[in-house]
């Protein structure tokens, strides 16, 4: 039987509590991984490994948290901000994130804010439904 979004959220919450040493009430849908939950670079790999194990899915490099391939492309980034082309690339590459606020001020330093708990839940849901 397919998992409900709430069931996925509960598992994701547990993963983040273990991986980041945060309390479960801090892990809300809107919480950002870096800003609110204090995730550092190695934590992203840890989270990917834990998601793969818990949900039995395979997460290709740069699929859940793309950064490198976008940052190094001058067509996508100009003056520290995403270009329209870059934003389109984001929409295509990370449909699990909510770009509605970000697109008003697409500063690359704010890219981390897109990676919320809700985005992970949405990503896992898409993955499980595709399987």
């Amino acid at each position, binding site marked *: 039987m397919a998992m409900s979004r709430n069931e996925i959220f509960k598992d994701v919450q547990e993963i983040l509590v273990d*991986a980041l040493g945060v309390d479960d009430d801090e892990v809300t849908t809107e919480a950002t991984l870096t800003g609110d939950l204090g995730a550092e*670079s*190695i*934590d992203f*790999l*840890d989270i990917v*490994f834990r998601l*793969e*194990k818990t949900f039995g899915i395979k997460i290709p*490099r740069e699929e859940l948290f793309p*950064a*490198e391939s976008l940052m*190094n492309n001058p067509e996508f980034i100009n003056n520290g901000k995403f270009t329209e082309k870059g934003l389109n690339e984001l929409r295509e590459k990370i449909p699990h994130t909510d770009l509605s606020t970000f697109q008003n001020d697409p500063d690359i330093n704010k890219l981390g804010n897109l990676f919320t708990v809700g985005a992970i839940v949405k990503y896992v849901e898409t993955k499980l439904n595709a399987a």
Partner: protein
Amino acid sequence: MSLAVSGRIAKSKPAVNFNEMRWIWIDKFVEFHSGKSAVAVKNVTLAEEHLHDHFPGFPVMPETLMIEAMAQTSGILVGEAKKFKEKVILAKIKKAVFFDYIKPGDTIKLEAQIESITPEGASTTGKITCADKIIAEIDLMFSHIDQNLAGKKFPDENFVFTDTFESLLRDVLLSGASPSEPGSEQN
């Protein structure tokens, strides 16, 4: 494996000669299954000076050094999986739980397993036992630092895996099976 060195690697050559750094907290490997698992042993002795201070009259192996010993066991396992081409650095202690003391005269067994490994890094699980009694459970994350997303550059020389570590693998190598052959077992 020098695991706390990332801050010092600013110049083209490491500030410390890692080949001369005697910082080894396991004695030898007794089992090695490439890319999967490894078992190392360490004999703890009062000849280790720090035991006289940790603690006076009550010498026990510091938990921090148990973590280091496990980091070396797991780290060599992770390094060998990529033929020692990657610089493998301890990046995160996921879990470290201690159940009992280790005293001089004890022989400890460190068992490590690779849980996941990708181009960016690896996660491992491990346990330390002494005469089949559980001493510690230590799960770690390693980073392949040349693959880091920040694109930071490190020296070409692999300062993590130096000659110093060769002797540790000698027994498993001499017993006929290459450590890179999966499924070979030695005791």
